[in-house]
């Protein structure tokens, strides 16, 4: 497979995963806001932090309110990390590589693109937002279903999987980090709402029902963190994603450096580093290592890249 084609498939998968994760985070947060009593609001800055868009947001918006933040994360085409931009980039990457996937692949991505193009300010109102975001999530699930059931386990699949897993690791770790910081800022009087906050973290990474089945209905900060970071069978946990990455990398030659990074990352997630006082430092380091894993993948298989991915840098270092 051509390096260029592999690279584009990798980025397409990253953008799609990012779209789905962002939609989930927005939905979970929008629900949370309804449940929080007056005076206990977290503010909308939290969401901007989750997608790591602080500077880019403050350059263009005066007020950090629901309307602006939702616009910024979902529709803002000037925000490289927005859902609208990610979907556009995913489609652009697939346009020239569509032969690598079953014909439906292009159709689904194109339809997702048309769907997002047709969204406007009205789609962001509280009444409609949930439906639109759920639709975006469903469309992504449809694409993932197609990949899982109809794509040969060849090079194309390998690079799609790499992109998807790395983006998932990036988003999940960021959600945990931002949530911890935000919750820590709340004073002890707000103790009654803390389980609500942690429940929404679980929802944001699609882990709520799995957690309830396995741990039970009582939501506890340490257990949530452990579940999302360490669980060996939940497909969005950091541990599970890393183990999948290791497996996917084993299909490729020249994988030594990347595999080493993945193993180190996996070894670094232990209960000790997940303690509240160490968590932020751990995630900072985790994200830096993810960035070097991306660099290693680029160097090993994409070679000299003159692809100009708009969000290539901003996804890691905004």
């Amino acid at each position, binding site marked *: 497979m051509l390096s*260029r084609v*592999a690279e584009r498939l990798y980025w397409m998968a990253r953008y799609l995963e990012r779209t789905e994760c962002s939609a989930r985070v927005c939905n979970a947060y929008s629900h949370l806001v309804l449940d929080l009593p007056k005076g206990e609001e977290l503010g909308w800055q939290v969401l901007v932090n989750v997608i790591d868009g602080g500077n880019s947001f403050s350059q263009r918006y005066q007020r950090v309110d629901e309307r602006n933040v939702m616009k910024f994360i979902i529709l803002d085409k000037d925000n490289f990390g927005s859902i609208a931009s990610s979907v556009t980039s995913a489609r652009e990457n697939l346009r020239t590589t569509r*032969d690598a996937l079953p014909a439906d692949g292009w159709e689904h991505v194109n339809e997702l693109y048309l769907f997002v193009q047709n969204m406007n300010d009205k789609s962001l109102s509280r009444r409609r937002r949930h439906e639109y975001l759920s639709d975006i999530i469903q469309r992504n699930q449809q694409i993932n279903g197609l990949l899982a059931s109809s794509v040969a386990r060849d090079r194309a699949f390998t690079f799609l999987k790499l992109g998807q897993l790395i983006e998932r690791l990036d988003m999940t770790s960021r959600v945990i980090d931002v949530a911890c910081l935000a919750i820590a800022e709340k004073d002890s009087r707000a103790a009654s709402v803390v389980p609500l906050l942690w429940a929404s973290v679980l929802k944001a990474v699609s882990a709520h029902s799995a957690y309830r089945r396995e741990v039970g209905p009582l939501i506890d900060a340490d257990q949530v963190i452990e579940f999302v970071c360490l669980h060996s069978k939940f497909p969005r946990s950091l541990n599970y994603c890393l183990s999948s990455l290791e497996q996917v990398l084993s299909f490729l030659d020249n994988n030594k450096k990347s595999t080493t990074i993945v193993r180190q990352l996996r070894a670094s997630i232990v209960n000790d580093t997940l303690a509240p006082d160490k968590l932020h430092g751990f995630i900072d380091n985790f994200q830096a290592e993810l960035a070097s894993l991306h660099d290693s993948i680029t160097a090993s298989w994409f070679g000299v890249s003159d692809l100009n991915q708009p969000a290539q840098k901003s996804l890691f270092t905004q």
Partner: protein
Amino acid sequence: MKAQWQEYDSSRFFDELITTSGRSRPSAGTVVNYFSSLSLDEMRQAKDAADLVIRDMGISFTVYSEGTNIDRAWPFDIIPRLIRKAEWSRVSMGLQQRSRALNCFIHDVYNTQTVFADGIVPAELVLDSGNFRPQCMGAKPRFGAWAHICGTDLVRAEDGQFYVLEDNLRVPSGVSYMLENRDITKRILPDLFENCSVFPVDDYPEQLYRTLCSLSPRRLKRPTLAVLTPGIYNSAYFEHSFLAHTMGAQLVEGQDMFVDDNDVVFMRTVDGPQQVDVIYRRIDDDFLDPDVFREDSALGVPGLMRAWLAGKVAIANAPGSGVADDKVLYAFVPELIRYYLKEEPLLNNVKTYLCMYDEDRDYVLENIAELVVKPANESGGYGLMVGPKSSKKKHREFEALIRDNPRNYIAQPTLGLSTAPTLCGSKISPRHLDLRPFILHSNDTWVTAGGLTRVAMEAGSLVVNSSQGGGSKDTWIIE
């Protein structure tokens, strides 16, 4: 006959399906009867079904306009154009003959140049042409084959004879639409298709694959083929991707390849560099290699010419092939056939007046109102004047142009192109058409069964280009 066939006028030009007296031509009976039995609603349903197939299969061509690319659905007319097998065999032989002679000529120009020494073609006419590439001198591609893929435009005139309009030897396109048109017909008119014995066209990708493999410098069971495209913004990108896909070849852009110090071409893959044996290029000579041709080209591969001249990679069509794709040279093709093959030309050339010759020029200036005047080095219908359809002022303008630069102009009689029944709104009307068969040439020569028929959708119009609203028809070669 149903109402939509009333007033069908087949008396003014040669019609492909209907005689001047309004009867169906021999062997067109089944098709004409079939369409005559359909109501307007049924025809529209068939047309809608065709449009749906086109949308679903994503058959499109790209039109660049106002800074954005629009993928337009491929325009298709449901009534096929028919040619009898016996007639096609003769045309096909003529096309093969032409292709052989043109390849001999290109090889001669870049090697011994006996054609000039023997006074068949004036040397300066070729050597001063923009299509001559001195960088190709001395090259000896395998089998002496240069123009491996040729798209020749044919028209049928009032006398019912086929004439060659031009030979496209650079990067002719359209073959994927020929294949898709057949697919559409099979889907929407299976009952009609079944009742006619139509020669298949879908062996083209296989034949192209064989032709390209035969050129490989390395003797391998499966050489590495690459289709070199300028990228997604090219109007024929759909076709590039289609052909790569159907041949199981890689669709590459210039940036995907490099040439090493041993003149070997590689493409960059996730498993490391992989040697490329044959490049089916869909970009012009100018952009092939910035080291040799246009320096500012980002579409090509630096060093590609070096690799080709060293015989380490085959390029189809070979660089420099365009030297035989020239409106002035066109006039000499019958002579080239006699000179190289010692055969009489089987296909008609349109009578062509070269304004560089005094006698021809005088004739053209006297009869300019009856002639089509074309600049020698333009393509795509640019700077062309159709005498009978132009004003006196325009005639004067072209007379002046010809006097100023006679070398740059040719003239031909205005041909009345043949027509075929075409669904236009609620009526079946005659529309002008042409035909582009594709000829493959390496150690052997092969011609498609039929080709791509293009139709001018406006009444009386002769413009068949899809970018200007032209349509297309499936072309059936039948017993």
